[in-house]
Protein backbone atom coordinates (compact mmCIF):
# COMPACT_ATOMS: atom_id res chain seq x y z
CA UNK A 1 0.00 0.00 0.00
CA UNK A 2 1.15 3.50 -0.75
CA UNK A 3 1.95 5.66 2.27
CA UNK A 4 1.32 9.05 0.67
CA UNK A 5 -0.83 11.37 2.76
CA UNK A 6 -4.37 12.13 1.66
CA UNK A 7 -3.73 15.81 1.19
CA UNK A 8 -0.74 15.22 -1.07
CA UNK A 9 -2.66 12.65 -3.12
CA UNK A 10 -5.46 15.16 -3.57
CA UNK A 11 -3.19 18.03 -4.59
CA UNK A 12 -1.21 15.76 -6.84
CA UNK A 13 -4.28 14.55 -8.73
CA UNK A 14 -5.95 17.95 -8.98
CA UNK A 15 -3.06 20.25 -9.81
CA UNK A 16 0.42 18.78 -10.18
CA UNK A 17 -0.50 15.85 -12.39
CA UNK A 18 -3.75 17.22 -13.72
CA UNK A 19 -5.47 14.51 -15.72
CA UNK A 20 -6.10 16.63 -18.78
CA UNK A 21 -3.12 18.92 -18.86
CA UNK A 22 -0.37 16.59 -17.69
CA UNK A 23 -1.59 13.08 -18.56
CA UNK A 24 -3.70 13.95 -21.63
CA UNK A 25 -6.58 11.85 -20.35
CA UNK A 26 -10.09 12.78 -21.36
CA UNK A 27 -9.04 15.03 -24.21
CA UNK A 28 -12.12 14.29 -26.34
CA UNK A 29 -14.69 15.76 -23.92
CA UNK A 30 -12.15 18.42 -23.04
CA UNK A 31 -12.19 19.82 -26.56
CA UNK A 32 -15.74 18.80 -27.36
CA UNK A 33 -17.62 20.38 -24.47
CA UNK A 34 -15.37 23.28 -23.59
CA UNK A 35 -16.79 25.89 -25.95
CA UNK A 36 -19.43 27.06 -23.45
CA UNK A 37 -18.90 27.70 -19.78
CA UNK A 38 -22.24 26.29 -18.67
CA UNK A 39 -21.91 22.93 -20.38
CA UNK A 40 -18.31 22.74 -19.20
CA UNK A 41 -19.43 23.02 -15.58
CA UNK A 42 -22.05 20.31 -16.07
CA UNK A 43 -19.67 18.02 -17.86
CA UNK A 44 -17.07 18.55 -15.16
CA UNK A 45 -19.61 17.61 -12.52
CA UNK A 46 -20.70 14.50 -14.44
CA UNK A 47 -17.13 13.32 -14.93
CA UNK A 48 -16.27 13.94 -11.28
CA UNK A 49 -19.24 11.89 -10.17
CA UNK A 50 -18.47 9.03 -12.54
CA UNK A 51 -14.85 9.13 -11.40
CA UNK A 52 -15.88 8.74 -7.78
CA UNK A 53 -18.13 5.78 -8.57
CA UNK A 54 -15.52 4.23 -10.86
CA UNK A 55 -12.86 4.54 -8.20
CA UNK A 56 -14.97 2.71 -5.62
CA UNK A 57 -15.90 0.04 -8.19
CA UNK A 58 -12.30 -0.41 -9.27
CA UNK A 59 -11.15 -0.82 -5.69
CA UNK A 60 -13.70 -3.57 -5.03
CA UNK A 61 -13.03 -5.32 -8.35
CA UNK A 62 -9.34 -5.28 -7.64
CA UNK A 63 -9.88 -6.94 -4.25
CA UNK A 64 -11.94 -9.62 -5.95
CA UNK A 65 -9.44 -10.17 -8.77
CA UNK A 66 -6.58 -10.39 -6.30
CA UNK A 67 -8.54 -12.96 -4.31
CA UNK A 68 -9.02 -15.21 -7.35
CA UNK A 69 -5.55 -14.35 -8.69
CA UNK A 70 -6.66 -13.18 -12.14
CA UNK A 71 -4.95 -9.86 -12.90
CA UNK A 72 -5.35 -10.39 -16.64
CA UNK A 73 -9.08 -9.79 -16.27
CA UNK A 74 -8.47 -6.32 -14.90
CA UNK A 75 -8.92 -4.21 -18.04
CA UNK A 76 -12.02 -6.01 -19.22
CA UNK A 77 -13.80 -6.02 -15.86
CA UNK A 78 -12.95 -2.39 -15.13
CA UNK A 79 -14.35 -1.19 -18.39
CA UNK A 80 -17.51 -3.25 -18.16
CA UNK A 81 -18.36 -2.19 -14.62
CA UNK A 82 -17.53 1.42 -15.35
CA UNK A 83 -19.62 1.55 -18.51
CA UNK A 84 -22.62 0.07 -16.71
CA UNK A 85 -22.19 2.72 -14.04
CA UNK A 86 -22.19 5.44 -16.66
CA UNK A 87 -25.35 3.99 -18.16
CA UNK A 88 -26.91 4.27 -14.73
CA UNK A 89 -25.91 7.90 -14.38
CA UNK A 90 -27.32 8.59 -17.80
CA UNK A 91 -30.69 7.10 -16.90
CA UNK A 92 -30.74 8.98 -13.61
CA UNK A 93 -29.94 12.24 -15.34
CA UNK A 94 -32.61 11.69 -17.99
CA UNK A 95 -35.12 11.25 -15.19
CA UNK A 96 -34.00 14.02 -12.87
CA UNK A 97 -32.90 16.74 -15.27
CA UNK A 98 -33.83 16.33 -18.95
CA UNK A 99 -32.39 19.75 -19.82
CA UNK A 100 -28.97 18.76 -18.57
CA UNK A 101 -29.31 15.52 -20.43
CA UNK A 102 -30.02 17.35 -23.67
CA UNK A 103 -27.22 19.83 -23.12
CA UNK A 104 -24.69 17.02 -22.76
CA UNK A 105 -25.89 15.46 -25.99
CA UNK A 106 -23.56 12.88 -27.37
CA UNK A 107 -20.86 13.38 -24.76
CA UNK A 108 -22.46 11.60 -21.85
CA UNK A 109 -22.32 8.13 -23.43
CA UNK A 110 -18.81 9.03 -24.47
CA UNK A 111 -17.77 9.27 -20.82
CA UNK A 112 -17.83 5.48 -21.01
CA UNK A 113 -15.02 5.47 -23.49
CA UNK A 114 -13.31 8.27 -21.63
CA UNK A 115 -9.72 7.45 -20.88
CA UNK A 116 -9.79 9.68 -17.80
CA UNK A 117 -12.15 7.29 -16.04
CA UNK A 118 -10.30 4.09 -16.90
CA UNK A 119 -6.98 5.85 -16.39
CA UNK A 120 -7.99 6.79 -12.88
CA UNK A 121 -8.93 3.19 -12.10
CA UNK A 122 -5.65 1.87 -13.48
CA UNK A 123 -3.46 4.47 -11.81
CA UNK A 124 -4.95 3.91 -8.37
CA UNK A 125 -4.41 0.16 -8.79
CA UNK A 126 -0.84 0.58 -10.04
CA UNK A 127 0.02 2.85 -7.13
CA UNK A 128 -1.58 0.52 -4.61
CA UNK A 129 -3.84 3.10 -2.98
CA UNK A 130 -6.04 1.97 -0.11
CA UNK A 131 -9.76 2.65 0.00
CA UNK A 132 -9.76 6.18 1.44
CA UNK A 133 -6.72 7.07 -0.63
CA UNK A 134 -8.56 5.94 -3.79
CA UNK A 135 -11.59 8.02 -2.93
CA UNK A 136 -9.49 11.09 -2.24
CA UNK A 137 -7.56 10.49 -5.46
CA UNK A 138 -10.75 10.30 -7.50
CA UNK A 139 -12.10 13.47 -5.89
CA UNK A 140 -8.88 15.30 -6.70
CA UNK A 141 -8.82 14.02 -10.25
CA UNK A 142 -12.46 14.95 -10.81
CA UNK A 143 -11.93 18.42 -9.42
CA UNK A 144 -8.82 18.87 -11.53
CA UNK A 145 -10.67 17.76 -14.63
CA UNK A 146 -13.56 20.13 -13.95
CA UNK A 147 -11.12 22.95 -13.24
CA UNK A 148 -9.26 22.43 -16.50
CA UNK A 149 -12.53 22.21 -18.42
CA UNK A 150 -13.93 25.40 -16.89
CA UNK A 151 -10.69 27.34 -17.39
CA UNK A 152 -10.58 26.22 -20.99
CA UNK A 153 -14.23 27.14 -21.59
CA UNK A 154 -13.64 30.59 -20.13
CA UNK A 155 -10.74 31.21 -22.49
CA UNK A 156 -12.58 29.82 -25.48
CA UNK A 157 -15.67 31.95 -24.84
CA UNK A 158 -13.46 35.04 -25.02
CA UNK A 159 -11.69 33.65 -28.05
CA UNK A 160 -15.00 33.44 -29.90
CA UNK A 161 -15.29 37.22 -29.81
CA UNK A 162 -11.89 37.80 -31.34
CA UNK A 163 -10.94 37.63 -34.94
CA UNK A 164 -8.91 34.52 -35.59
CA UNK A 165 -7.56 33.54 -39.01
CA UNK A 166 -9.63 30.78 -40.61
CA UNK A 167 -6.64 28.50 -40.65
CA UNK A 168 -6.25 28.46 -36.88
CA UNK A 169 -9.93 28.50 -35.98
CA UNK A 170 -11.34 25.52 -34.12
CA UNK A 171 -9.18 22.68 -32.90
CA UNK A 172 -5.81 24.26 -33.66
CA UNK A 173 -6.59 27.35 -31.57
CA UNK A 174 -7.99 25.18 -28.79
CA UNK A 175 -4.81 23.10 -28.81
CA UNK A 176 -2.60 26.15 -28.43
CA UNK A 177 -4.76 27.41 -25.56
CA UNK A 178 -4.53 23.99 -23.91
CA UNK A 179 -0.76 24.01 -24.36
CA UNK A 180 -0.46 27.36 -22.64
CA UNK A 181 -2.78 26.23 -19.82
CA UNK A 182 -0.68 23.12 -19.44
CA UNK A 183 2.44 25.27 -19.17
CA UNK A 184 0.72 27.24 -16.45
CA UNK A 185 -0.10 24.06 -14.54
CA UNK A 186 3.56 23.08 -14.68
CA UNK A 187 4.04 25.84 -12.16
CA UNK A 188 2.39 23.57 -9.59
CA UNK A 189 5.13 20.97 -9.90
CA UNK A 190 6.72 20.45 -6.52
CA UNK A 191 3.50 21.15 -4.61
CA UNK A 192 2.24 18.45 -2.30
CA UNK A 193 5.09 16.15 -3.06
Amino acid sequence: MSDASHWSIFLNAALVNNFVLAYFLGICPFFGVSSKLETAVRMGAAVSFVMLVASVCAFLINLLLDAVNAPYLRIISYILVISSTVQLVEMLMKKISPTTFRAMGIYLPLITTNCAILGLALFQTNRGYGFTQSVVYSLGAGLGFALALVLMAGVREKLELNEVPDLVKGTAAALVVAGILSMGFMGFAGLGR
Partner: protein
Amino acid sequence: MASKEVTSTDEFVKGLWRDNPVFIQVLGMCPALAVSNTALNALAMGLATTFVLLMSGLSVSLLRNFIPREARIVCYICIIATFVTSVDYLIMALSLELHRALGAFIALIVVNCLILGRAEAFASKHKPGRALLDGLGMGVGFTLALLFIGVVREILGSGSLFGVAVFPDGFQTWTVMVLPSGGFFAMALWLLIVNRIKQKQAATAKTVEVTS
Protein backbone atom coordinates in the same frame (compact mmCIF):
# COMPACT_ATOMS: atom_id res chain seq x y z
CA MET B 1 -24.82 2.84 -49.61
CA ALA B 2 -22.16 3.56 -52.18
CA SER B 3 -19.66 1.17 -50.62
CA LYS B 4 -20.04 -1.26 -53.53
CA GLU B 5 -18.21 1.11 -55.82
CA VAL B 6 -15.42 1.84 -53.39
CA THR B 7 -12.29 -0.01 -54.45
CA SER B 8 -10.29 -1.96 -51.89
CA THR B 9 -7.24 0.26 -52.31
CA ASP B 10 -9.39 3.25 -51.48
CA GLU B 11 -10.54 1.48 -48.32
CA PHE B 12 -6.91 1.39 -47.28
CA VAL B 13 -5.79 4.78 -48.55
CA LYS B 14 -8.60 6.79 -46.98
CA GLY B 15 -7.18 6.22 -43.51
CA LEU B 16 -3.84 7.67 -44.54
CA TRP B 17 -5.02 11.09 -45.58
CA ARG B 18 -8.68 11.86 -46.35
CA ASP B 19 -10.02 10.36 -43.12
CA ASN B 20 -6.81 10.38 -41.14
CA PRO B 21 -7.91 9.51 -37.61
CA VAL B 22 -5.76 12.03 -35.79
CA PHE B 23 -5.43 15.02 -38.09
CA ILE B 24 -8.82 15.00 -39.82
CA GLN B 25 -11.20 13.18 -37.49
CA VAL B 26 -9.37 14.26 -34.32
CA LEU B 27 -9.99 10.87 -32.68
CA GLY B 28 -7.68 9.08 -30.30
CA MET B 29 -5.97 12.25 -29.19
CA CYS B 30 -5.07 11.06 -25.71
CA PRO B 31 -2.42 8.52 -26.73
CA ALA B 32 -1.41 10.70 -29.67
CA LEU B 33 -0.36 13.42 -27.28
CA ALA B 34 0.64 11.45 -24.22
CA VAL B 35 3.20 9.00 -25.55
CA SER B 36 4.55 10.99 -28.47
CA ASN B 37 7.41 12.55 -26.51
CA THR B 38 9.92 10.38 -28.39
CA ALA B 39 9.62 8.92 -31.87
CA LEU B 40 10.20 5.38 -30.60
CA ASN B 41 7.36 5.53 -28.08
CA ALA B 42 5.09 6.98 -30.74
CA LEU B 43 5.95 4.17 -33.14
CA ALA B 44 5.39 1.44 -30.54
CA MET B 45 2.08 2.94 -29.52
CA GLY B 46 1.01 3.23 -33.15
CA LEU B 47 1.87 -0.39 -33.88
CA ALA B 48 0.08 -1.65 -30.78
CA THR B 49 -3.02 0.33 -31.73
CA THR B 50 -2.84 -0.94 -35.30
CA PHE B 51 -2.74 -4.51 -34.05
CA VAL B 52 -5.80 -3.99 -31.87
CA LEU B 53 -7.60 -2.20 -34.72
CA LEU B 54 -6.92 -5.07 -37.11
CA MET B 55 -7.86 -7.87 -34.76
CA SER B 56 -10.95 -6.21 -33.34
CA GLY B 57 -12.08 -5.17 -36.83
CA LEU B 58 -11.71 -8.73 -38.02
CA SER B 59 -13.53 -10.23 -35.03
CA VAL B 60 -16.35 -7.72 -35.10
CA SER B 61 -16.79 -8.23 -38.82
CA LEU B 62 -16.83 -12.04 -38.47
CA LEU B 63 -19.31 -11.90 -35.62
CA ARG B 64 -21.45 -9.12 -37.07
CA ASN B 65 -24.42 -11.42 -37.72
CA PHE B 66 -24.33 -12.93 -34.23
CA ILE B 67 -24.03 -9.82 -32.12
CA PRO B 68 -27.45 -8.55 -31.04
CA ARG B 69 -27.96 -4.90 -31.91
CA GLU B 70 -28.94 -3.85 -28.41
CA ALA B 71 -25.83 -5.24 -26.77
CA ARG B 72 -23.37 -4.46 -29.52
CA ILE B 73 -21.30 -1.81 -27.75
CA VAL B 74 -20.68 -4.10 -24.78
CA CYS B 75 -19.67 -6.92 -27.13
CA TYR B 76 -17.29 -4.63 -29.02
CA ILE B 77 -15.73 -3.43 -25.80
CA CYS B 78 -15.20 -7.03 -24.64
CA ILE B 79 -13.53 -7.94 -27.93
CA ILE B 80 -11.30 -4.87 -27.88
CA ALA B 81 -10.37 -5.36 -24.23
CA THR B 82 -9.30 -8.94 -24.93
CA PHE B 83 -6.87 -7.87 -27.62
CA VAL B 84 -5.61 -4.93 -25.59
CA THR B 85 -4.83 -7.27 -22.70
CA SER B 86 -2.87 -9.53 -25.05
CA VAL B 87 -0.92 -6.57 -26.47
CA ASP B 88 -0.20 -5.40 -22.93
CA TYR B 89 1.29 -8.76 -21.98
CA LEU B 90 3.07 -9.08 -25.34
CA ILE B 91 4.88 -5.76 -24.91
CA MET B 92 5.73 -6.68 -21.33
CA ALA B 93 7.29 -9.90 -22.61
CA LEU B 94 9.18 -8.19 -25.45
CA SER B 95 10.58 -5.17 -23.68
CA LEU B 96 10.02 -4.26 -20.07
CA GLU B 97 11.63 -0.90 -20.67
CA LEU B 98 9.15 0.04 -23.38
CA HIS B 99 6.30 -1.21 -21.24
CA ARG B 100 7.43 1.11 -18.47
CA ALA B 101 7.74 4.06 -20.85
CA LEU B 102 4.24 3.61 -22.22
CA GLY B 103 2.83 2.86 -18.78
CA ALA B 104 -0.93 2.68 -18.43
CA PHE B 105 -1.39 3.99 -21.95
CA ILE B 106 -1.24 0.51 -23.46
CA ALA B 107 -4.19 -0.52 -21.31
CA LEU B 108 -5.86 2.72 -22.32
CA ILE B 109 -5.92 1.68 -25.98
CA VAL B 110 -9.17 0.03 -24.97
CA VAL B 111 -10.86 3.41 -24.60
CA ASN B 112 -9.37 4.89 -27.76
CA CYS B 113 -12.46 6.27 -29.49
CA LEU B 114 -10.88 5.41 -32.83
CA ILE B 115 -11.12 1.65 -32.31
CA LEU B 116 -14.69 1.58 -31.04
CA GLY B 117 -15.59 4.08 -33.74
CA ARG B 118 -14.24 1.86 -36.53
CA ALA B 119 -15.92 -1.22 -35.04
CA GLU B 120 -19.26 0.56 -34.90
CA ALA B 121 -19.07 2.56 -38.12
CA PHE B 122 -17.28 0.14 -40.41
CA ALA B 123 -16.47 -3.38 -39.27
CA SER B 124 -20.01 -4.13 -38.11
CA LYS B 125 -21.34 -3.42 -41.61
CA HIS B 126 -18.70 -4.91 -43.90
CA LYS B 127 -17.08 -8.22 -44.81
CA PRO B 128 -13.91 -9.31 -42.95
CA GLY B 129 -11.56 -8.52 -45.86
CA ARG B 130 -12.74 -4.94 -46.10
CA ALA B 131 -12.74 -4.53 -42.35
CA LEU B 132 -9.10 -5.67 -42.28
CA LEU B 133 -8.14 -3.20 -45.01
CA ASP B 134 -9.97 -0.40 -43.26
CA GLY B 135 -8.30 -1.28 -39.96
CA LEU B 136 -4.90 -1.42 -41.60
CA GLY B 137 -5.41 1.95 -43.30
CA MET B 138 -6.62 3.61 -40.13
CA GLY B 139 -3.85 1.98 -38.12
CA VAL B 140 -1.13 3.10 -40.50
CA GLY B 141 -2.65 6.58 -40.65
CA PHE B 142 -2.71 6.70 -36.85
CA THR B 143 0.87 5.43 -36.57
CA LEU B 144 2.11 7.97 -39.10
CA ALA B 145 0.34 10.82 -37.32
CA LEU B 146 1.82 9.73 -33.99
CA LEU B 147 5.23 9.42 -35.58
CA PHE B 148 4.98 12.91 -37.09
CA ILE B 149 4.16 14.41 -33.70
CA GLY B 150 6.80 12.28 -31.98
CA VAL B 151 9.52 13.25 -34.45
CA VAL B 152 8.87 16.98 -34.01
CA ARG B 153 8.82 16.64 -30.24
CA GLU B 154 11.94 14.52 -30.01
CA ILE B 155 14.01 16.60 -32.43
CA LEU B 156 13.16 19.89 -30.75
CA GLY B 157 12.85 18.61 -27.19
CA SER B 158 15.82 16.29 -26.91
CA GLY B 159 17.78 17.18 -30.06
CA SER B 160 17.73 13.58 -31.24
CA LEU B 161 15.77 11.20 -33.43
CA PHE B 162 15.19 7.58 -32.33
CA GLY B 163 17.85 8.25 -29.70
CA VAL B 164 20.50 9.44 -32.21
CA ALA B 165 21.63 13.04 -31.82
CA VAL B 166 20.81 15.18 -34.86
CA PHE B 167 22.14 18.53 -33.73
CA PRO B 168 25.71 19.54 -32.90
CA ASP B 169 26.62 19.73 -29.21
CA GLY B 170 25.85 23.41 -28.72
CA PHE B 171 22.14 22.97 -29.45
CA GLN B 172 19.91 24.28 -26.69
CA THR B 173 17.03 21.79 -26.43
CA TRP B 174 13.47 23.07 -26.18
CA THR B 175 12.55 21.25 -23.00
CA VAL B 176 8.98 22.43 -23.29
CA MET B 177 8.43 20.13 -26.27
CA VAL B 178 9.04 17.01 -24.17
CA LEU B 179 6.77 18.27 -21.42
CA PRO B 180 2.99 17.85 -21.74
CA SER B 181 2.42 21.29 -23.25
CA GLY B 182 4.77 20.42 -26.12
CA GLY B 183 2.32 17.72 -27.17
CA PHE B 184 -0.41 20.30 -27.59
CA PHE B 185 1.88 22.63 -29.53
CA ALA B 186 3.23 19.95 -31.88
CA MET B 187 -0.28 18.72 -32.57
CA ALA B 188 -1.49 22.29 -33.25
CA LEU B 189 1.43 22.78 -35.65
CA TRP B 190 0.54 19.68 -37.67
CA LEU B 191 -3.13 20.61 -37.69
CA LEU B 192 -2.21 23.99 -39.12
CA ILE B 193 -0.18 22.39 -41.89
CA VAL B 194 -2.96 19.93 -42.69
CA ASN B 195 -5.55 22.73 -42.71
CA ARG B 196 -3.36 24.78 -45.05
CA ILE B 197 -3.01 21.89 -47.50
CA LYS B 198 -6.74 21.21 -47.40
CA GLN B 199 -7.46 24.89 -48.01
CA LYS B 200 -5.15 24.90 -51.03
CA GLN B 201 -6.74 21.73 -52.40
CA ALA B 202 -10.21 23.22 -52.03
CA ALA B 203 -9.04 26.38 -53.80
CA THR B 204 -7.62 24.47 -56.77
CA ALA B 205 -10.74 22.32 -56.97
CA LYS B 206 -12.81 25.49 -57.19
CA THR B 207 -10.73 27.05 -59.96
CA VAL B 208 -10.89 23.82 -61.94
CA GLU B 209 -14.66 23.88 -61.63
CA VAL B 210 -14.84 27.47 -62.80
CA THR B 211 -12.57 26.99 -65.80
CA SER B 212 -14.15 23.77 -67.03
